């Protein structure tokens, strides 16, 4: 891990810690349910789960303000839930139903919410990086003080357009936070086999963009890094890079048998570094919550997820007329 890794725990209230627990648990349970619905054939095509990476988006969002924008890749369910998009609407999009956030026309990889300033959900690896810088360009043009969280993976970090974007974001001082979610595997290719450096954030140095590595399994470390990054961007100093080192427990997509890593590697991460378990321990040992309190939250989340699945199952398929709508504004 890099030299600039934060070891200091930020101040956090019991209330905020509980919120992190709740938000991360919602993503975890939602994704487990999505996996289940996929197994039942209710969700088709590709389905990329966020399980294991929950602390990344929840920690980043902790420093977001009203009107800040976010954009990410096709592994997008967690980001949508974290910025407050309706779980039922997300799940119904996964099942391709009328009640989905894109009326069933986008699917797992292509979802948007103007209301929550969530700009997708992009299926082309790396494409969201210049798009995110463009969103930041629009904010700078309007002078509204907003920032854009632009998420991409360690795999996308090898796309040429990422560096074209770093260059322009730097020369134009765009208020964009490049969040590299390094889950260590670009689909099935381990980082060491695909990427010239173990510390991807250092690639910003050539463009004069400051960056740091962050422990992505520790939501408080991510939150602290997000506060530094947003402060930098809001002060007009231009872009900032956060390489958040994380881990996905599941395969790249539902059809990935994940033979490129050992079961032990995954189990070790799950049992020793799990982001939700870490917060659960903090809540209990800090006496911020009792087992009963947490059980109540678990139950409440389970109910939200079950309702989202029920909605996704019962919402009708889109009317055939929808085939021909939304092609032109």
């Amino acid at each position, binding site marked *: 891990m890099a030299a600039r890794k934060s070891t200091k725990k930020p101040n956090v209230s019991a209330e905020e810690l509980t919120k992190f627990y709740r938000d991360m648990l919602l993503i975890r349970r939602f994704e*487990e349910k999505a*996996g289940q619905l996929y*197994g*039942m*054939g*209710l969700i*088709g*095509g*590709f389905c990329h789960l966020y399980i294991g990476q929950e602390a990344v988006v929840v920690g980043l969002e902790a420093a977001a303000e009203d009107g800040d924008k976010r*954009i990410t890749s096709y592994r997008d369910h967690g980001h949508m839930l974290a910025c407050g998009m309706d779980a039922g609407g997300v799940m119904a999009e996964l099942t391709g139903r009328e009640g*989905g956030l*894109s*009326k*069933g*026309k*986008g699917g797992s990889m*292509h*979802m*948007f*919410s*103007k209301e929550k300033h969530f*700009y*997708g*959900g992009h*299926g*082309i690896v790396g*494409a969201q*990086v*210049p*798009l*995110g*810088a*463009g*969103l*930041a*360009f*629009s*904010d700078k*043009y*309007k002078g509204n003080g907003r920032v854009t969280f632009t998420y991409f993976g360690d795999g996308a970090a090898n796309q040429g*357009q990422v560096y*074209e*974007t770093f260059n*322009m974001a730097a*020369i134009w001082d765009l208020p964009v936070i490049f969040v590299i979610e390094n889950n260590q595997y670009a689909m099935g290719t381990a980082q060491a086999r695909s990427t010239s450096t173990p510390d991807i954030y250092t690639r910003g140095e050539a463009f004069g963009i400051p960056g740091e590595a962050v422990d992505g399994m520790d939501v408080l470390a991510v939150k602290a890094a997000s506060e530094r990054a947003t402060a930098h961007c809001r002060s007009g100093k231009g872009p900032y890079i956060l390489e958040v080192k994380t881990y996905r427990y599941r395969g790249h997509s*539902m*059809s990935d*048998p994940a*033979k490129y890593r050992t*079961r032990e590697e995954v189990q070790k991460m799950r049992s020793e570094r799990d982001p939700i378990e870490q917060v659960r321990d903090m809540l209990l040992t800090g006496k911020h919550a009792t087992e009963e309190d947490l059980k109540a939250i678990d139950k409440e989340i389970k109910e939200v997820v079950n309702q989202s699945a029920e909605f996704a*199952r019962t919402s009708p*398929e889109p009317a*055939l*007329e929808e*085939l*021909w709508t*939304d*092609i*032109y*504004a």
Partner: protein
Amino acid sequence: MATEILMPALSPTMEEGTLAKWLVKAGDTVSSGDILAEIETDKATMEFEAVDEGVIGKILIAEGSEGVKVNTPIAVLVEEGESLDATPAAGNEAPVAGAPTAPAAPVAAAAASDTPVVDNSPDWPEGTEVVKTTVREALRDAMAEEMRSNENVFLMGEEVAEYQGAYKISQGLLDEFGAKRVIDTPITEHGFAGIATGAAFGGLNPIVEFMTFNFAMQAIDHIINSAAKTLYMSGGQMGAPMVFRGPNGAAARVGAQHSQDYAAWYMQVPGLKVVMPYSASDAKGLLKSAIRDPNPVIFLENEILYGRSFDVPKMDNFTVPFGKARIWREGSDATIVSFGIGMQYALEAADKLAADGISAEVIDLRTLRPMDLPTVIKSVMKTNRLVTVEEGWPQGSVGSYIASEVMQQAFDYLDAPVITCTGKDVPMPYAANLERHALITTDEVVAAVKQVTYR
């Protein structure tokens, strides 16, 4: 409550699989993430994990079973303390996909027996003062006028600001609008096309100038995957109100990599609008419409036409609508359809043909998507013969699309096969004589019209 564990679909194409191995047995307690079984799909052997916690009540499908259909119950999961053979809850079946035929596209196609209704009204009122203007000035004026009226419109591209435009289209814009709105980019088409598309998602109205459309090949992923498709993929929530413009097609003696006509490529994409003007008034009126359009617009200019002068009306707020062809010359013996610089050959050919006593009607499509096919059909119903003219390559050309539509919509009116005059099916050569032959020529158009009129 007991729940059934169902045979999972573990790939987008899996319909059945082999339950290779059970890793749990009845009575085992499992929690979320535990591996229950190994399942062979059509692609790979997958580990199948528990989603819920509980106790395995009963194994329903023995290991080694082949051809187990997706969604078949393979085991029963009960809660701790519950009877092992509790009845599972009903439900969970996948919905039956509706199989009615999809509705046809809402087309305005005319039945062959009806004359299509078309609007061939003039672009400006009779008596309006006109000014001789070059295509270059007309494009600049269009951008300047729209930038004056909408502060969210900005221009970005290589050499558009301080250099005043590689082809001097943006002359004077930096002085009037400043560096915030007239932005020099690095030479990085993929990146700045993406940034501009993101800015459009963010509520601005970018005009992206490509030094030529040949270089837009580096950016075509953002033009199509990001700009053209987002409105549809977002269920209408957000799109990209923007213009991608620049010279397209052959200039003169610049060789294969700088001389390609992309009209047919972009015309194929739903979500894009595609404009290819010939005259200066169309360049101005259509570019103003493009900047105001809430969709991504591909605006294909031509370097050779930049310096040509045409009448442009002296009017406030002059625009030309999309999807309205212009009839440049009325005729009765054959219809020539073209667009962009192809119009030069079409009009020259019509002059030559007139000298031979053949009356050709010449139609400028002006926009390729939407395309004013009704005007073409109506003309073919009168002349019964059709020749299309373009500089692009023959296979999958704009002309071949028009020919297929005319055949389907007005077959009974055709007295000769449609001829599509195109550039030759070769990369553009450099040598002057070879280049001349690679491009479409006026004589080829004349010969084609004589062929369809059997002269």
